[in-house]
């Protein structure tokens, strides 16, 4: 469904991504994990066409994404829950969800999607007339996911959904994400810093470090963790004892 080929992104002299490849199949949950500054957000922003890659291509269902505008990508059915959630704090909860329908004309479906979002996150229904800036961090994350769902996406990317949230709320967020695949057939690309939870949810795992994919594979085959650890940190577990303090 989404093919990323030899993607390279530079910020001035800094190279954030040095030719990465991703291949995400319809209906799967893919996870990119990697330390801070690995290029995870850069990858997602390129997929949403917010950043222009210096080289490589991104295609969604055969349509080229790189070179288009962010609003075109949204129209193709690709939605993003960005890092920091980017809720419109001066708008009400309901208005935030309404903005998600900007590209749509199918009124009855929009209404049904709205009801489905409220059903998934009842708290958003209770607070729909409140200013979104007054929501707690967890509620804002739910609103960001709900808003992305209102675009009626076929493919959704989520940047660090667990960032700054209590473990209990993170569990709830993942529950919802896994359920979205089941109930809507949504394809997901989740970015996380910690590999533990991502491994549990993902079908496919990519470890990104220094702007390059260090490891890619089926999550079920990477459960022992050693290879992931090496890819993530750049050295394997066995060397830990040698680290001088």
């Amino acid at each position, binding site marked *: 469904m989404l093919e990323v080929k030899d993607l390279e992104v530079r910020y001035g002299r800094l190279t954030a991504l040095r030719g990465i490849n991703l291949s995400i199949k319809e209906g799967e949950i893919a996870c990119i994990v990697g330390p801070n500054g690995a290029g995870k957000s850069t990858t997602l922003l390129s997929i949403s066409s917010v950043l222009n890659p210096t080289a490589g291509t991104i295609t969604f269902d055969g349509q080229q994404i790189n070179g288009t505008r962010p*609003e075109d990508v949204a129209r193709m059915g690709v939605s993003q829950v960005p890092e920091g959630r980017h809720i*419109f*704090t*001066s708008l009400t909860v309901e208005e*935030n969800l309404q903005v998600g329908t900007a590209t749509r004309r199918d009124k009855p479906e929009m209404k049904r999607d709205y009801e489905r979002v409220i059903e998934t996150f009842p708290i958003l229904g209770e607070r729909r007339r409140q200013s979104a800036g007054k929501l707690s961090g967890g509620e804002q994350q739910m609103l960001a996911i709900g808003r992305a769902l209102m675009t009626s996406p076929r493919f959704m990317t989520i940047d660090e959904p667990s960032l700054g949230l209590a473990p209990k709320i993170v569990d709830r967020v993942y529950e919802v994400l896994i359920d979205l695949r089941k109930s809507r057939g949504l394809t997901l690309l989740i970015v996380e810093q910690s590999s533990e939870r991502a491994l549990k949810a993902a079908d496919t795992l990519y470890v990104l470090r220094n702007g390059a994919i260090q490891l890619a594979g089926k999550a079920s085959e990477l459960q022992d963790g050693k290879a992931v650890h090496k890819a993530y940190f750049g050295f394997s577990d066995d060397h830990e004892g040698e680290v001088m303090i």
Partner: protein
Amino acid sequence: MAFALQVLMNALSLGSLYALAALGIGLLFGVLKLINFAHGDFITVGAYALIVPSAATQATLMIGDFHPLILIPCIVAVVVILALIAEFLVFRPLRSASPATLMIGSFALGFVIQNILIMIYGGRPKAVGIWSDLSLGVELMEGVEVPKLQLIIIGVTLVLMVVLVLFLTKTKYGVHMRAAAEDFRMARMLGIEANRVIMLAVAISGMLAAAVSMLFVVQTGILEFRMGVSLMLFAFIATVIGGMGSLVGAVVGGFAVGAVSILLQTFLPSEMRVFRDVFVFAIVIFILLVRPQGLVMSRASRERV
């Protein structure tokens, strides 16, 4: 009591003009992060559009002679078209540049407009009398007479503000515009068309400028190629002390600047009145020292992390 009411009406009507101009600036700043210094010149063009384009010292009314129901849409159309041309030729090519570059671009545009006005109409001020019966007084209560025009300025401003608020909160495009003003990139990622939202903001800003054109020229009765510049300056100050990025702040700031000007005009000793603006700006500096974020904090700056 009667005197106080008179001063209040003066302050409200001057404040209204500043508030309308400040709203036009604030709206564009919201979506484009552009401080449009050409806004004052948009206002000037709206006023000049009333007369026949010629360098003659005596102004001959053209659109200004039409029935108000035709005149008003004509002037609005002229200013909106001018604003859209500015968007296509100046603001759009500079959109990805820094806000400072955009602002300087708007300065340059302002000078170009002023010089085109001089080329067409000549540089001398011209008298133009439209709707002069509006300057007649209306007795509000015993001993309090105010020009009809003041009531109209205040009324028009109130109506336009209510319409703008309804547009921004009750319509789809208004909600999109507020979303884009808060977080343009996120709005685009959700599918909001950047060009459409900006063009709409530019057009509304033009409509507000046209309203100021007509109210202002009826009040002063004079056309001058820099007439919008000082209005723009005061409106800009209004948006700054009101809090950049907040439309409520722009209105509050507009009325505050209007009130301060009128109070100084009224209570300063007559030999110091010429220096009125010095005192206005001193107060502005004081406000900015005490509340650098402006009187009304924009909601975006209160964002939770």
